[in-house]
């Protein structure tokens, strides 16, 4: 099958307007007859379900959590970008578009990114109208901050809880539609397969996680808003339940998977403390605005951080990248930390951490504060007091969280941080309309691949989730559904539903009947270790080839020796987890294949074979300026399709942060 990205003709800044002006419409009376299934209720899913419900469609929304308000969008800390230019500092739709394409290391689709930048402003308006309490200035207007090293202040925020506030806004819009009867909400439900009739997605098989019973649900189309797959690494900043299952089932039913190896490793997370570790916690990127990152100059130094004198510290980011220093992009900062630790300079008990130190910031702010009151000769301890107060106002909640987890006070001793898996830029391949390669099947938000290329910029994930749900899908879906108005609802006793349910049921029975000796968790941990060691921050052909064999072997063991307690028809979290880990065991292999195929370094994907003499990532536009869209052909068998990327506006250059 050839890939048609359906990018509208015309100039870049007119494409979306032209598209909207010519797209097919569905009249209100017909909307009432059309049913839409939305899987996942994070920012993308909740905003899509609410907006489509408001338009008059009949929507069914599904989430595995006990309430749509729990989706992992809620954990986003820093903020959401928009090209409002409220700060009068030269921002524009074009600049946001440009920064996003460049930040993605020229592996995203220009037309999609331009549309994202265009609708970014509507998102802020919509959220404010819903009562989202963004930070404000004393004049009552919205406040902005800079983020991720951009040169303009375009990030809107609500303290360190921006994701929470945006999700609760979308959730309230969704619950309003539930009350009005246009959306039916199915929480504690997990989608376990797509139902296809005559090549079109026509429904899903879902499992009620409380009763364990399988259900059939019809829809004229299906929207997957199911987030990313970072948990394939076992340890990540994702929620425990975040999984690839819905996207993976869609993939096996014909949806191509785009750029699966593009993973974002975030540089500032709390390090692993031991084998018991179940997840990792992010510390907002904003900390790098004031914190300085360092390791001891001496290998294997066992002294405490505070006991190491200034001249024996290596501020390696400032040394390697004098122009950007501690504010280099996420991928660069992460690799530099790994390099130091691999060389034996790491700190803490595990030696897999670097310091993020606020001592200088505390003194600097303390002196400024003392100066404000004319107390130029303030004693050192007074300066420290004053400085700590300033740092507390900026980062107090993060410092508290750090102390709860580690038991160390970051006002007194440097924080220990290490990179962790955070976001997946890859996902289901979609065209300009967010449609996958299966007719009637759409993917929104982190679940699709389209907007972030090989590296996502800070404060862009929230923007994309809400753009897709509030402002893109309400238009593009109509273009498909306009041709579906003659399709009556298909009863779920249709053979395709019966067959799909049977397949799901057989797989569950098979899992339960293995009755082996090893827990689901133990398999997940081993898979995570393979992925992290060989398909993590740095990748090479030999390691990836080994990983593929190891994953195949592990998958075989899983299907012959996993132990799942309990029964099928009851609340059984171990069974839920087993299904998800089984899918991760297949996805992991594809990620390694994709990473092996892409013999270039770009964004978060670093192939050791493709680097400059100074050890920086080297992109290869001549050979790899394409999206890898993998087609499932059976067990361990995929065909690579390529969508060539052309850049009309933002001409690719090698990124440099020296």
């Amino acid at each position: 099958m050839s890939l048609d990205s359906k990018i509208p003709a015309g100039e870049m800044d007119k494409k979306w307007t032209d598209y909207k002006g010519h797209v097919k419409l569905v009249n209100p009376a017909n909307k009432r007859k059309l049913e839409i299934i939305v899987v996942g209720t994070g920012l993308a899913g909740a905003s899509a379900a609410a907006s489509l419900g408001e338009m008059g469609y009949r929507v069914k929304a599904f989430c595995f959590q006990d309430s749509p308000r729990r989706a992992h969008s809620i954990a986003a800390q820093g903020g959401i970008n928009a090209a409002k230019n409220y700060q009068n500092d030269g921002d524009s739709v074009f600049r946001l578009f440009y920064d996003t394409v460049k930040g993605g290391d020229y592996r995203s689709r220009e037309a999609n990114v331009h549309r994202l930048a265009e609708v970014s402003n509507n998102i802020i308006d919509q959220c404010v109208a819903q009562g989202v309490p963004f930070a404000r200035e004393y004049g009552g207007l919205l406040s902005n901050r800079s983020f991720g090293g951009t040169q303009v202040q375009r990030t809107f925020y609500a303290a360190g809880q921006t994701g929470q506030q945006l999700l609760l806004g979308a959730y309230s819009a969704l619950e309003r539609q539930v009350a009005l009867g246009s959306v039916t909400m199915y929480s504690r439900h997990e989608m376990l397969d797509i139902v296809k009739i005559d090549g079109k997605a026509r429904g899903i098989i879902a499992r009620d996680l409380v009763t364990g019973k399988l259900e059939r649900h019809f829809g004229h189309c299906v929207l997957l808003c199911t987030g990313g797959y970072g948990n394939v690494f076992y340890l990540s900043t994702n929620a425990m339940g975040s999984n690839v299952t819905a996207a993976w089932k869609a993939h096996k039913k014909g949806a191509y998977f785009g750029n699966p190896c593009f993973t974002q490793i975030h540089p500032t997370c709390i390090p692993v403390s031991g084998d018991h570790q179940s997840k990792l916690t992010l510390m907002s990127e904003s900390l790098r605005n004031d914190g300085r990152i360092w390791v001891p100059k001496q290998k294997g130094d066992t002294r405490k951080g505070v006991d190491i004198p200034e001249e024996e510290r290596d501020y390696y980011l400032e040394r390697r990248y004098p122009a950007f220093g501690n504010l280099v992009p996420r991928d660069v900062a992460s690799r530099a930390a790994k390099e130091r630790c691999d060389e034996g300079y790491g700190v803490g008990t595990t030696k897999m951490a670097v310091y993020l130190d606020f001592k200088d910031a505390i003194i600097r702010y303390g002196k400024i504060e003392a100066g404000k009151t004319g107390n130029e000769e303030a004693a050192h301890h007074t300066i420290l007091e004053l400085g700590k107060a300033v740092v507390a106002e900026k980062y107090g909640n993060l410092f508290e969280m750090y102390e709860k987890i580690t038991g160390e006070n970051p006002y007194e001793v440097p924080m220990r941080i290490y990179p962790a898996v955070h976001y997946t830029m890859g996902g289901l391949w979609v065209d300009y309309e967010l449609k996958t390669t299966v007719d009637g099947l759409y993917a929104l938000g982190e679940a699709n691949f389209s907007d972030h290329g090989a590296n996502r910029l800070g404060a862009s994930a929230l923007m994309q989730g809400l753009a897709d749900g509030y402002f893109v899908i309400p238009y593009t879906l109509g273009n498909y559904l306009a041709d579906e108005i003659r399709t009556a609802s298909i009863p779920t006793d249709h053979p395709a539903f019966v067959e799909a349910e049977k397949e799901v049921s057989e797989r569950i029975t098979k899992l339960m009947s293995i009755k082996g000796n090893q827990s689901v968790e133990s398999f997940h941990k081993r898979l995570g270790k393979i992925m992290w060691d060989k398909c993590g921050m740095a990748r090479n052909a030999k390691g990836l080839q080994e990983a593929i064999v190891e994953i195949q072997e592990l998958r075989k063991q899983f299907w012959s020796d996993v132990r799942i307690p309990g029964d099928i028809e009851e609340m059984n979290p171990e069974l839920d987890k087993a299904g998800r880990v089984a899918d991760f065991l297949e996805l992991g292999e594809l990620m390694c294949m994709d990473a092996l195929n892409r013999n270039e370094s770009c964004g978060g994907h670093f192939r050791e074979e493709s680097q400059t003499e100074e050890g920086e990532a080297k992109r290869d536009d001549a050979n790899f300026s394409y999206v890898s869209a993998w087609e499932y052909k059976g067990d361990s068998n995929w065909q690579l399709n390529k969508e060539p990327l052309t850049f009309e506006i933002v001409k690719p250059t090698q990124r440099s942060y020296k």
Partner: protein
Amino acid sequence: MEHYNMKLTLKVWKQKNSNTPGNFETYHVSDISSEMSFLEMFDVLNEQLITEGKDPIAFDHDCREGICGMCSMYINGRAHGPWTKNTVCQLHMRAFKDGETIVVEPWRAAAFPVIKDLMVDRSAFDRIIQAGGFISVNTGNAVDANSLPVDKKDADTAFDAAACIGCGACVAACKNSSAMLFVSAKVSQLALLPQGQPERETRVLNMVTQMDKEGFGNCTNTYACEAECPKGISVANIARMNREYLKAGLKSEAK
């Protein structure tokens, strides 16, 4: 931070489903590191139970960073355990000593029926939001965000109320199983903002009616909810909701 290992005895509520009565089971765990989170200690226990061929303990959890509101354990008589302004997932084992016995129960409230073991059904909270916890603005209807200035103090107070994670600890901590802190946090957030004015009166009346219908108890001002709230939501919100309710009630009677 110096860390240590401990042996612990756990008395945990086990209940097959909402139709079957439950009881406490006693478990023993060892080599629990003080660096583990409380839920990681449960992970260790569950792995042990699975290895022994026993039934693991079901509990709700998701983000494990204190923001999704899914985790919900009543530990040694306190919602979310011994630390203040904290969720179970952020509680760490250095809060306990070697040899201790820890009692773990689900949220106890008529409006939160037990689903299994430590999991409860909190869908009543969703239905209260459905009754009015929103501003009726369809997508695409919004005016420019800065056309509506909001007094910074009101915006900050609204934000403090909006920090609620909907975990239900306030209900679990209250001797009357009252949901007043949860409901008042949403009523306050929207009453404080200019966007929330058009539906201000119907909102509070409808949300309180739904709250009563769900079977939550009354507020008797013991402030246990505020003390146990992981996000420090203030009882001042309850006072504000009472005022809002009274005003709205008088106005609707006058109509």
